[in-house]
């Protein structure tokens, strides 16, 4: 759907900072999240998890647990279907293991009981006979021939023979003559990097309330980024039809990609089917860390050549990602994103995925991109230091722009990278003085953005208000932005529109809330649905006025006569048309169903000042500024909120957060005390600068903004710390012990 030239008009609602419709419920404690509702006769579910990193399950004896008073159902992997589709099968086996436990925390059995404490006691009575197997948790170790094999027979055909069976995929992107490119360079730097797995760290653990009868009809209430995804996964895992499952998304307490899969809903449904009662499962934080998806852990080699005056002549990256115990394609996106910010004659990236005995990777905000871009941007920064060049000037000299053939194939349309870099260069932050032990770093960031399958229904109510029904959980204020776009298009006040999120039985299929797609794709579908309603309202009015349909136009919330033969009629408002809809043909609604493309890639630039403490290895973030192209910021507060929140998640990734495994393959820091996410006192204000380079693929020029902000912080902070410490840091997180070791040798 093309950019609407009319969008250069002055917006009335879009771009303002209105109050969100769910605000009062969320500041008064009324909003209902995953764990906040109960059902009469409800049972409590609890899951038994493997204490071993890798073990064959010889037998499970549930007889003692079943005898405990109050236990109503026990399930194991045998109670779930075995879907033929590999992706569905992996989800089912991840929900309840079958032959092998693949990581510390892998679900093995589950109990439903009349109280939480009985359920907790019951799982301790289940006896699992494990044959402990050798394990591997490091990606480089997992790729070596002879490494313990996590799963057999999962490699794709593009993986060369002779590698460990843990290696499942190989991707390659690029163009140009690398040898010729490197030959032209005055300086070549090659570095290897490692990054730890991190967790999305949403504050609300996964929770659900599920009910399934033996007739195959079921209901689920759960916190998820996609109720239709939950439906598909549950239907496959339970062997029931999708139409018989109604999934309602609760308010969601954070996701960041982490709630784009299912862990407990199929288990709760299986327990409910056996017990004949609704079952509620709420994960503990320990379970969230051990058994829901962290992001990838990585090992990467980057080689870049540069001329004396700062032109990049060639770039090559070799990325090795582990997405845990299952085949995983996140490295595909990392390999595509690595060099996306640059206009290059010669570039190549090769990406590998290797299975390890870690939890199944689940996307985390711009999955795959932050780590790859961290490695590339670190080498670019080191080249700037080596050649005594200004790092912003070098980015500007090499920046991708309209017409650039991207490193991953497509040619870029209108993109905002150069404008974003120029805004950073002009900002006072870039030239502010620095003190001792302080350093400034910057990085570009990139994300593809996504459109996807989207349905919207827009109802004109008889009192002149408007109802929008959409199918994507509101993860950070999207109901406000969708209502704003509906109000803008219809010409009615924002508070006349109410947007609700449908359950799976009330609206057609919608892709997950992911890929920064909701404001773009649901917004686009809402605008089209509003236009359909407007066409219908104009048709009704033409009938009343007895003139041609095309002699009626829509302006400022009213149908008006237009053109030489329209006559003179007083404008009819939406409310007036709605009030008599019963007399003009019945209820008025607009719909739009689309698989939206044209999402428009997104670029951002982050500037960061840090101070390192040579005695402790600690890093303090002194100043942080985010520059990002939003296309059109529908609600600027929530665009800024995405930029700030993403930056701070990136700060955590850069400085503190990591999955730490012991020699025994067990996760050693499965809690928020030892897995340390940034707290308020760690941080300065996060300054934001929004740029608006309209996306040609959206009627108002909107681009998704949610994911790009987590991409640049890793390198921006690494570059700032490396300059402050006088030593190049090549491993994340740059936790105090790691930095101290690097500084003291």
């Amino acid at each position, binding site marked *: 759907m093309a950019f609407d030239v009319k969008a250069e008009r002055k917006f009335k609602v879009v771009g303002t900072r209105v109050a969100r419709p769910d605000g009062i419920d969320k500041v008064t404690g009324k909003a209902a999240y995953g764990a906040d509702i109960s059902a009469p006769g409800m049972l409590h579910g609890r899951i038994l998890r493997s204490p071993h990193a890798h073990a064959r399950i010889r037998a499970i004896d549930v007889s003692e647990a079943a005898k405990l008073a109050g236990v109503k159902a026990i399930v194991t992997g045998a109670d779930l279907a075995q879907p033929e589709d590999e992706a569905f099968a992996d989800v089912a086996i991840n929900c309840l293991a079958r032959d092998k436990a693949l990581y510390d925390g892998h679900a093995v059995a589950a109990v439903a009981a009349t109280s939480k404490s009985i359920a907790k006691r019951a799982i301790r009575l289940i006896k699992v006979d494990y044959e402990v197997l050798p394990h591997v948790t490091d990606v480089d170790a997992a790729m070596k021939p002879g490494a313990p094999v996590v799963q057999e027979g999962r490699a794709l055909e593009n993986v060369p023979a002779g590698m460990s069976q843990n290696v499942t995929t190989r991707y390659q992107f690029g163009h140009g003559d690398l040898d010729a490119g490197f030959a032209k360079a005055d300086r070549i730097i090659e570095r290897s990097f490692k990054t730890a797995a991190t967790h999305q760290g949403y504050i609300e653990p996964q929770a659900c309330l599920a009910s399934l009868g033996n007739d195959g009809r079921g209901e689920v209430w759960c916190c998820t980024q996609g109720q239709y995804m939950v439906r598909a996964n549950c239907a496959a895992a339970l062997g029931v039809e999708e139409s018989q499952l109604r999934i309602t998304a609760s308010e969601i307490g954070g996701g960041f990609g982490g709630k784009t899969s299912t862990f407990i809903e199929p288990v709760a449904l299986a327990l409910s089917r056996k017990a004949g009662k609704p079952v509620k499962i709420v994960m503990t*934080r320990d379970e969230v860390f051990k058994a829901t998806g962290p992001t990838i852990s990585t090992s990467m080699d980057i080689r870049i050549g540069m001329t004396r005056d700062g032109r990049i002549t060639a770039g090559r990256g070799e990325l090795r990602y582990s997405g845990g115990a299952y085949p995983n394609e996140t490295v595909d996106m990392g390999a595509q994103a690595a060099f996306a910010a640059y206009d290059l004659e010669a570039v190549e990236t090769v990406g590998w995925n290797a299975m390890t005995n870690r939890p199944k990777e689940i996307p985390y905000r711009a999955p795959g991109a932050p780590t790859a871009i961290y490695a590339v941007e670190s080498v670019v920064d080191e080249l700037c230091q080596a050649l005594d060049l200004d790092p912003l000037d070098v980015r500007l000299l090499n920046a991708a722009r309209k017409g650039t053939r991207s490193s991953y194939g497509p040619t870029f349309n209108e993109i905002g990278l150069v404008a974003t870099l120029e805004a950073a260069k002009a900002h006072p932050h870039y030239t502010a003085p620095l003190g001792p032990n302080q350093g400034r770093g910057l990085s570009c960031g990139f994300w593809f953005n996504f459109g996807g399958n989207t349905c919207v229904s827009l109802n004109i109510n008889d009192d002149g208000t408007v109802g929008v029904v959409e199918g994507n959980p509101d993860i950070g204020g999207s109901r406000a932005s969708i209502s704003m776009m509906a109000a803008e298009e219809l010409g009615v006040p924002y508070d006349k529109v109410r947007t609700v999120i449908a359950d799976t039985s009330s609206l057609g299929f919608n892709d997950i809330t992911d890929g920064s797609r909701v404001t773009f794709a649901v917004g686009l579908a809402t605008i089209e649905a509003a236009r359909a309603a407007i066409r219908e309202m104009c048709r009704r009015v033409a009938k009343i006025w007895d003139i041609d349909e095309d002699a009626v136009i829509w302006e400022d919330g009213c149908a008006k006569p237009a053109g030489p033969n329209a006559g003179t009629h007083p404008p009819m408002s939406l409310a007036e048309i709605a009030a008599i809809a019963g007399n003009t043909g019945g209820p008025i609604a607009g719909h739009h169903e689309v698989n939206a493309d044209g999402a428009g890639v997104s670029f951002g630039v982050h500037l960061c000042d840090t101070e390192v403490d040579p005695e402790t290895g600690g890093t303090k973030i002194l100043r942080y500024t985010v520059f990002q192209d939003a296309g059109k910021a529908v609600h600027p507060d929530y665009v800024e909120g995405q930029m700030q929140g993403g930056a701070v998640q990136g700060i955590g990734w850069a400085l503190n957060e990591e999955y730490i495994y012991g020699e025994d393959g067990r996760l050693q820091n499965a809690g928020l005390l030892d897995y340390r996410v940034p707290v308020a006192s760690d941080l300065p*204000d*996060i300054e934001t600068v929004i740029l608006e380079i309209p996306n040609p693929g959206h009627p108002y020029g909107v681009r998704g903004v949610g994911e790009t902000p987590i991409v640049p912080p890793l390198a921006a902070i690494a570059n700032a710390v490396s300059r402050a410490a006088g030593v190049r840091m090549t491993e994340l997180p740059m936790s105090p012990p790691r930095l101290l070791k690097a500084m003291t040798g």
Partner: protein
Amino acid sequence: MKTIPVETTINGDSAEFLCHADESLLDVLRDRLGLTGAKEGCGTGDCGACSVMLNGRVVCSCLVLGVEAQGAEIETIEGMANGETLHPLQRVFIEEAALQCGVCTPGILVAAKALLEKNPDPTDTEVRYWLAGNLCRCTGYDKIIKAVQIAAAEMRGA
């Protein structure tokens, strides 16, 4: 397991409940009294999403036993607004977009109100350290700190 009768005061109203000796105040509030505004983010006192006031002090209700509520005064997020009039912190949090997913918001509001009762004119640093026990994963805290300061200024002027 035997249950224990507890008499307490919640948001100014007297309340009675039965609970087990090992049940947390958070579980009592949520499961027995239907007050689900306080959230369990961790169950170990690390995230602050379950913050409530117990006899005038902010506590993580997941670390308090239900039986400890005997004879105590408890305030929760459900008692912060006065009828349909929001507390200034609640209103400013909406106006300044200081919440995204909103799951940490009840705990942060309870903690911020306690701060402003103790220190009506805090510095940004004081706000940041006071709220260091309340994790927010969405906002990066920037708009939360600004909203607390705007509400504080308004409350000082009122």
